[in-house]
């Protein structure tokens, strides 16, 4: 199932996730599939990492400490604050959003995943489809 990922060895992923266990699981599965993974539990630090380094994919949890995932998303999409963002932003959350927030996320993010509905291996499959 994860064979396809062997061709994408050097892809860099930033996983902004405050649940240590989920961070560990995602990190394990993604590393196994050949991704270069950085896990950051803090919102502000995650934002700074995303602004100072080039990642291919950012997995962004919404309920995170210091600043919310929605704020991180907005600042990453703000050309003045993050002038050169190449990464695809995938929201990974377990929190159901209100419709207006959903619409905002659909507009600003590149993907959306309910964490409880997929296993780490399914996440890898999902991400393998992003070129």
């Amino acid at each position, binding site marked *: 199932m994860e064979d396809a990922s062997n061709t994408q060895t050097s892809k860099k992923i930033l996983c902004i996730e405050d649940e240590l266990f989920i961070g560990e699981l995602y990190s394990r599965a993604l590393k196994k599939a050949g991704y270069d993974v950085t896990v950051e539990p803090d919102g502000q630090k995650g934002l700074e990492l995303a602004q100072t380094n080039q990642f291919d994919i950012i997995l962004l949890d919404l309920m995170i400490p210091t600043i919310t995932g929605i704020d991180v998303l907005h600042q990453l999409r703000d050309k003045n604050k993050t002038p050169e963002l190449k990464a695809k932003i995938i929201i990974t959350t377990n929190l159901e959003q209100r419709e207006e927030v959903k619409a905002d996320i659909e507009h600003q993010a590149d993907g959306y995943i309910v*964490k409880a509905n997929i296993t780490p291996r399914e996440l890898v499959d999902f991400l393998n489809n992003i070129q």
Partner: protein
Amino acid sequence: MDHLQQFIKRGKLYAYILIVLINFVLIASWWVISQILHLPSPVVLSILFILAIALPLIVVPLVSTIFVQPLTFVWQAILYMAPETTSVPAPELHKVRYARELVTNLVNHVYQLADASKHVAKTVNKEAEGLHNNFIANSLPLPLMVLDKHETILFANTAMLHYLGQSEEDVVNQSVYSHLDLSFETDDTLDTWLKHAKSKHVATSKTWERVRLTIRGDKPTIKLLDLVAYYNKSNPAGYETMLVCFDRTKTYAQDEQAINFVALAVHELRTPLTMLRGYIEALDEELKGKLNDELSGFLQKTQVAAGQLATFVNNILNVARIEDDHMVLKLQKENWQEVLNTAINELRPRAQVRGIDLKLNIADDLPEVGADRVSLYEVISNLIDNAIKYSGQGKEIIVSAKLSKDGLVETTIEDHGVGIPASAIPRVFDKFYRDHHNRSQIGGSGLGLYLCKTIIKAHGGNIWVHSKEGEGSTFGFTLLPYSELADELKNEDNEGIVRNAHGWIKNHSLYRG
């Protein structure tokens, strides 16, 4: 009036004297020209003719001054008192030369009338002041406001001032629209209703629910309220419209929070669930080939149970959404064969751990359907879970999809289990309904089928069940081909978003789901 009679008399007298004078001048002129200067008749006549024209030219302005000057002063007095004109000075009455008494008198009348109208305006204000001193209006524990015909606030009671957190000076004499930031649920707002009321009614009233009032200031707050308005055109005191607020902030906010509570509870359930599923999968990967059949069976069953828990958690969330009208489907063009295949393959382990064979039988001539993948995955997983749950000794579940006679895409899930008693069939799709017969043996929330029905109906399809006790059940549902879907339901071009059962991703070309 005496002054007017005097003025008329004097005017007539002046006119009489002036005409007599002209005549005298003409006669005297004739006498001088013909008797003393002895000029010939044609010359005399010519001179008299010229005089007859010239004399009135001198006299008429004099006469008109007598009549027009008093009118000018009175006119100036009126303009001076008129509220709209400010540049006209007061008439200087000592300069009046003719009919001074009459002019003074009339100007005084003008001044008195102007004072009287000011007084009327003052009385209205006084009436409003009266409201301020009115015990009932002021002590009414409900926020109350009174508007005049220009929709200006005449009065706000103590409760209203408190509600708005403002003083009387801030509120009174302000336009209600510029002062109250109200937003209504529909287009039927206060101003449209008032416009209608003013053109069509003498007296009428109206109630709005769930009105949102934004109070600006250092700490902006939002209040939710029911608003009652009473309109009465013929109110002599100028109180045309009365507004009463019923604060419902707590009640309505609780309604809004209900979904938030469920969302929060679901979040708390999902977080450990994510970890469980993740670690079970990790164990499964690490221990592959190292466990005996029984232990790897345990692991697979744990995996299935966690998957079912995820389905159930989604059910709770969806039912809460339906209850609150927050369920939004995104119907896109989908290949049903592919959707069904993906879902069944994902759900197959749930049947396998119970020794049940999940068979798939999909016709290959199906048209594309209008479907919301996330919701339909939930429908399929609920129907499969149900079929597994009620399979009893049955070891086979058959999922079929074909084009119906009506041109709809029809999917059926058939089990050979315990079946449903005829008496229970009409109610199986009701919320919280569970078959009494089976309740003691098989667990379930009674949410799944209710959810299936709601989702399928929202897709424009139909859902049904055929069952015989002891022989098994067949659940079926239809979906509309995408081409038959009403335009307003279509959601095709959503920034190229591709949805799957558990999320979405942008741009078709990047996703091979």
